[in-house]
């Protein structure tokens, strides 16, 4: 007699512990989830590198440097968590969450990214002899002796060689430094210089700093064009989030209810596993730092509906076994054993699809693959391992031998 109740107590303790854990960690969990731009509001820009005269070839190195430079510029906006990353071989995505509410913010971003200037050094006829991709660094300095500021320029080896070539031949002349063809500086050539040179004669340090920034950030290895610019108002995102969360709560409640009605006590255990599934999936998504978008939420809700599949397969099998006159304990064992192969084969097939999508996809397709595969793996754990655990405890507690626990009491003879 005593043993039976031990199992029941264990079962209830597990459920209570799980409930308490989820209840107390729910808030920190949801606060940790990164919201996608479509929810948090903000600006999303897609930049594409285009071939142009004098620019570097569009390759990995050039793109990575472009990302670094764009990040530099975007940082000057002071956005909390800007995301700047490459998309495919020649595009850069800039996402600025919660930015763009103030008047003029969006124009600022446009200006910052839109005029992704190409820095060039031109000779006196206006021909490009050196591209900005050869520039390594530019820093403003103050010369106290002469009471003026100057900008120190560092070039790479190739740049140094070209600069030396040009300045040696043109002492007494000058050169143009242009951003997108607009002259930003026109220093005279006093002496031949190589990889390191200075632009002197700037009246204030402020002006020198501006020039240095323009040189540094203008030195994009490739020309970038804005291909896609979207702003989402924060109010729209908030309403969408509320609606989708509301829909999610209703959807999950309906699934829980359906399982309870269809599979009675076993359904209740599956429901507990399903709540764990929802929690674990959200937790893993926040752990890998995936941003939750509106379609992502829809996918999660759909996943809840699909996650009970393994339970359904197992319970139907147990029902079959019960109908054939097995005891509850025997039916549970046989049911799990027989269902296992089905669950494995169907889920592995889907996982293969998920794996291929992940391997060959980028951006949203990869994100989709992660969510899909994650859902499958988590549901294998909650719907098979965890549920089995709960059911074994229930059966061991021997509360009832009645087959009504699965809703087949009437059918079984």
């Amino acid at each position, binding site marked *: 007699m005593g043993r039976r109740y031990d199992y029941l107590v264990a079962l209830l303790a597990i459920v209570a512990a799980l409930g308490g854990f989820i209840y107390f960690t729910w808030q920190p969990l949801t606060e940790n989830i990164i919201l996608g731009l479509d929810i948090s509001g903000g600006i999303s820009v897609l930049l594409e590198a285009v071939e142009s005269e004098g620019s570097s070839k569009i390759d990995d190195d050039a793109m990575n440097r472009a990302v670094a430079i764009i990040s530099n510029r975007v940082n000057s906006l002071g956005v909390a968590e800007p995301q700047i990353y490459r998309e495919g071989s020649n595009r850069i995505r800039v996402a600025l969450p919660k930015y763009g509410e103030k008047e003029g913010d969006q124009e600022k971003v446009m200006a910052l990214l839109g005029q992704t200037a190409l820095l060039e050094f031109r000779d006196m006829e206006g021909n490009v002899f050196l591209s900005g991709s050869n520039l390594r660094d530019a820093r403003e300095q103050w010369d106290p002796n002469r009471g003026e500021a100057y900008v120190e320029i560092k070039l790479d080896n190739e740049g140094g060689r070209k600069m030396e070539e040009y300045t040696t031949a043109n002492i007494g002349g000058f050169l143009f430094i242009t951003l997108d063809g607009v002259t930003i500086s026109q220093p005279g050539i006093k002496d031949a210089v190589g990889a390191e040179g200075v632009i002197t004669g700037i009246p204030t340090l402020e002006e020198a700093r501006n020039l240095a920034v323009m040189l540094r950030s203008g030195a994009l290895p490739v020309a970038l064009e804005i291909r896609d610019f979207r702003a989402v108002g924060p109010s729209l995102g908030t309403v969408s989030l509320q609606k989708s969360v509301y829909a999610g709560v209703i959807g999950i409640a309906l699934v829980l209810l359906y399982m309870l009605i269809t599979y009675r006590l076993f359904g209740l255990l599956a429901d507990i596993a399903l709540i764990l599934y929802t929690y674990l999936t959200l937790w893993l998504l926040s752990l890998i730092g995936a941003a939750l978008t509106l379609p992502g939420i829809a996918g999660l809700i*759909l996943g809840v509906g699909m996650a009970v*599949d393994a339970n359904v397969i197992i319970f139907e099998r147990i029902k079959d076994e019960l109908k054939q006159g097995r005891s509850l304990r025997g039916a549970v064992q046989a049911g799990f054993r027989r269902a296992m192969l089905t669950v494995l084969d169907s889920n592995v097939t889907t996982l293969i699809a998920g794996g291929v999508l992940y391997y060959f996809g980028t951006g949203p397709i990869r994100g989709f693959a992660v969510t899909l595969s994650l859902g499958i793996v988590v549901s294998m754990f909650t719907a098979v391992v965890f549920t089995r655990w709960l059911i074994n405890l229930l059966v061991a507690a021997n509360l009832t031998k009645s087959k009504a626990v699965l809703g087949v009491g009437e059918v079984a003879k």
Partner: protein
Amino acid sequence: MNIIAKRKRFYGLSLVLIAIGLIALAVRGFNLGIDFKSGTIIELNLQESFTTGEVRDVLKPFGLESASIRSFGTSGTEVEIRTEILTDQQLTEIREAFRAKWPNLTSQVPAQVDPIFSLGLVRQALMALALASVGMIIYISWRFEFKFAIAAIVALLHDVLLVVGIFAVFQIEVNSEFIAAILTIVGYSINDTIVIFDRIRENQQLAKRRTDLGELVNQSVAQSISRTINTSVTTLLAIGAVLLFGGVTLRPLATALVVGVIVGTYSSIFIASSLWYDWKLREQARHA
């Protein structure tokens, strides 16, 4: 339940539906959403109610009378205008023209959209799907047999074509999320089909040598039918809630998923096993 006896009817039904869908696609095309069109989107809150005719009149002098104009939001004062790509200069002039008529209007900075991103996604998704199919064929051939694999993939193709057709017929908006929906449907449908095939495989092993193959398939489908229906119901309950309560933004995605789950369930029950049966039958006839 005798699915095998009636299988020709289901083939016919599917072929007719797919044909209608493909004809609609050829004739009317998709109702492409913002992700697949390039252009400029202007969002204005005019602060008072308006008719699209009034908005069109303002756009006329700019040669933009064919722009798409629709109201959005709940206030009835917000309008979204989609045009071809406009320059900053044009945009300023258009905004001034609107301000002359509705002095209190507020505006968002216009969005510039370009379909390259979404088109790239479509290409990528198709490539990945083709490769995923190869992977699934290999796995299913190994665990089951080659005929099961091909039947499952044909059923998948059936589902994708049907969903695509339904979207063309009813002109439901197609956005880049549609790609995710198709991928999800593929995942759902293959799962559903494999569960039934698994039952066929099991019954094959249990069956005596001279069991009628059609009877065996019918029996297997019947044995897995409560699982098929229950899983469809829970999935539909979940995604149906999104369709009904999830707001306008998620509606096209939820619609595609609801349609996909229904189609996927249908093909698992009525198409996939029958395809396998027909192939198997031909093989047996050859050996006999």
